[in-house]
């Protein structure tokens, strides 16, 4: 096979080889229940990482996703426990997530604040707001306060496949479409590639920035709804550190933190690698302390091999 093609599919090949090694180490790995389990566990991180891909492609970063997840989870739990219609509750939580993203986006594009700082602000403020809103305690959906429809979002199955897996696939299909087939997608790459040239090409740079943070917030809220639904409870401390897992998935997928280069397909693979790694280490009974070290090592190796290529 020619080298170029090999390079192109490097990450997929890496994923396959990696899975193969894991399957040798643990016979349980390649069983259907375990595979579905991995996909379900990966869905949260990969949905957040999809949003993060939009942001990172513009050369930004979004640290607020974990807080948005917790906040929108709390909002959805509160609304449902107050008897609000499930659809309405879900839509409101998603809108709030998108608005939180817009807030970061406005600070960045209008206030000319660096994305790291702006989203750090959103992250801190929203985490505080969640704690205030929930009085620091989980909002639990139980008894007559629960809703079967809602708990199916995170915990249900359709054709034996968990619902979150469908949602993940849907998010990736739409993201792929937007990034590769639409003007918006092209503008995102252009902005990340050269902001000055994008401005001079007549792109509405601040609108694009606003949009990517809104998308990231929206998807973080979706992840929040799934999390809340699955455990029937919204923990105000949920999602702490999730931004780092999402960034890791994006970077593992070969997207440049400088912006302008990368792909959503890479992000899926990155998220899957992280998911499989966690799963494999669990199957092999490796303590979660060591798991973190292993995760760091894998990211380092992947990023270094990418660097050499360039």
């Amino acid at each position, binding site marked *: 096979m020619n080298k170029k093609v090999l390079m192109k599919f490097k990450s997929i090949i890496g994923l396959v080889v990696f899975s193969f090694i894991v399957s040798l180490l643990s016979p349980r790995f390649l069983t259907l229940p375990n595979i579905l389990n991995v996909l379900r566990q990966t869905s949260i991180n990969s949905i957040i990482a999809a949003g993060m891909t939009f942001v990172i492609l513009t050369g930004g970063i979004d640290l607020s996703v974990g807080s948005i997840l917790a906040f929108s989870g709390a909002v959805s739990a509160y609304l449902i426990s107050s008897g609000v219609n499930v659809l309405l509750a879900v839509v409101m939580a998603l809108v709030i997530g998108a608005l939180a993203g817009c807030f970061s986006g406005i600070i960045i594009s209008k206030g000319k604040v660096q994305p790291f700082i702006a989203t750090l602000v959103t992250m801190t403020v929203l985490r505080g707001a969640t704690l205030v809103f929930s009085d620091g305690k989980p909002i639990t959906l139980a008894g007559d306060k629960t809703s079967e429809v809602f708990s199916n979002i995170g915990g249900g199955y359709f054709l034996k496949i968990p619902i979150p897996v469908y949602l993940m696939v849907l998010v990736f299909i739409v993201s792929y479409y937007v990034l590769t087939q639409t003007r918006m997608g092209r503008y995102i790459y252009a902005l990340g*590639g*050269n902001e000055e040239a994008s401005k*001079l090409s007549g792109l509405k740079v601040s609108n694009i920035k606003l949009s990517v943070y809104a998308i990231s917030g929206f998807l973080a809220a979706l992840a929040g709804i799934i999390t809340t639904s699955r455990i029937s409870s919204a923990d105000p401390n949920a999602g702490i550190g999730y931004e780092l897992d999402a960034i890791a998935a994006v970077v593992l997928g070969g997207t440049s933190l400088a912006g302008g280069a990368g792909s959503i397909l890479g992000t899926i693979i990155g998220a899957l690698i992280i998911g499989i790694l966690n799963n494999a280490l669990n199957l092999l009974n490796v303590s979660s302390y060591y798991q973190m070290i292993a995760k760091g090592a894998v990211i380092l190796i992947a990023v270094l091999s990418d660097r050499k290529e360039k």
Partner: protein
Amino acid sequence: MNKPIFEMKGIVKEFPGVKALDGVDLKIHQGRVMALLGENGAGKSTLMKILSGVYQKDQGQLIYEGEEIHLKGPKDAQDLGISIIHQELNLIPHLTIGENIFLGREPVNKFKKIDWKKLYEDSEKLLKKLKVDKDPRQKVSQLSVGEQQMIEIAKALSLHAKIIIMDEPTDALTKKETESLFEVIDELRKDEKGIVYISHRLEEIFRMCDDVTVLRDGRFIGEDEVKNLDENKLIEMMVGRKLTEQFPRIEVKKGELALEVKNLSNEYIKDIHFTLRKGEILGISGLMASGRTELAKTLYGVIQKISGEIYIEGKKVEIKSPQQALQKGIAYVSEDRKGEGLILGLSVKENMTICSLEKFEESLRISSKKEKEAVKRYIGHMNIKTPSENQKIKNLSGGNQQKVSIAKGLMTKPKILILDEPTRGVDVGAKKEIYDLINEFKKEGMSIIMISSEMPEVLGMSDRILVMYQGRISGEFSIEDASQEKIMKCAVGIKEA
């Protein structure tokens, strides 16, 4: 005159596709100021980069105090006592004056702790020598540009520089700052330093310099003592070349008025008036920082106007952003291809269509078929050499990148096309092709504004020429009346008698 302290002999420097220097000589004498004069692109900066060790010469000799030397990097030049004061100052704003002067060479005591007392005392001595009344503990960010320049000179002195190069030192200075700079230069001359003074401003050269070396198109034109020369003679040396390249200027019957600009002013340009007809090429000449690019960017909505009016086809328009400019039919092709024009990581196709993507949109998505067809048409028509439309633009040659930049503007179907240095960094063959394309647009009735530092290009292509100097239009010529000498006079701010 005694022997020069430093001599450059027969320097040749080639870049891919361009011979930047072709046998250039330069002599630097102790206690004298040598002016280095030439148009934009004459090779002054390249020569100075070789002198300061940033570039290495391909051929020629560097002779320092009678011995041939080789400079492998800026450090070698610094060790020999060669200091360059760049147009863009290289100070660190958040550090103090003293910290900047001794950056990387801080005096230390025996425990390797920085000896602040000595650092600031030494800084103070240097400042006193340059008659700068500032506390060396003050941060550089609080200083004016002129004062910052003095700090650069202090840094050069602290390095025991014997040769000091000043690249357009007065460009950003006020009159008063310029005067005090001249006093310092006089002092340095008395201290037996050898000085190279690069400037476009002829009056400064007559005022400050002892000798002058003129470059043109990378070649050495002559060296003489300033007292033997006058302005006319110098201008002749700077521009006195024959129009060697072929410019296929075509005559097109001029159409109706496309653009009228009245009283346009902002912080960069003052009272700009001009008109432009359909099928006309308006050349804008002038030296760097004369406000040409700023004028273009004001028309294109990148820089906001403060006062004045713009009329397109007789209708008054307000242009506040590039989007609005494009909608109203103005396209701008930047002089800075890599910084402002192209997105290097994207493909030829993606770059070419970025301004006009909505034309290829079909129910929310980009029709890749339509887009590809259009891009291929332009690639074929403009003879862009690329393996495919999906090739990354950074892998193309300068000329082909420039063609893509122009195609990007053209795809918006502009009425008025502004080309800022359309052939900068483009090899000769591609230049000719670009000229042919520009003429073709002209034939189709497009109005073209062509900003250029290259005199033959302006004279060879334009129907009318505006010359800018310090943000104002200092001259307007029909092509029949224009000559290199007249343009150069306006460009350096000499009033017509």
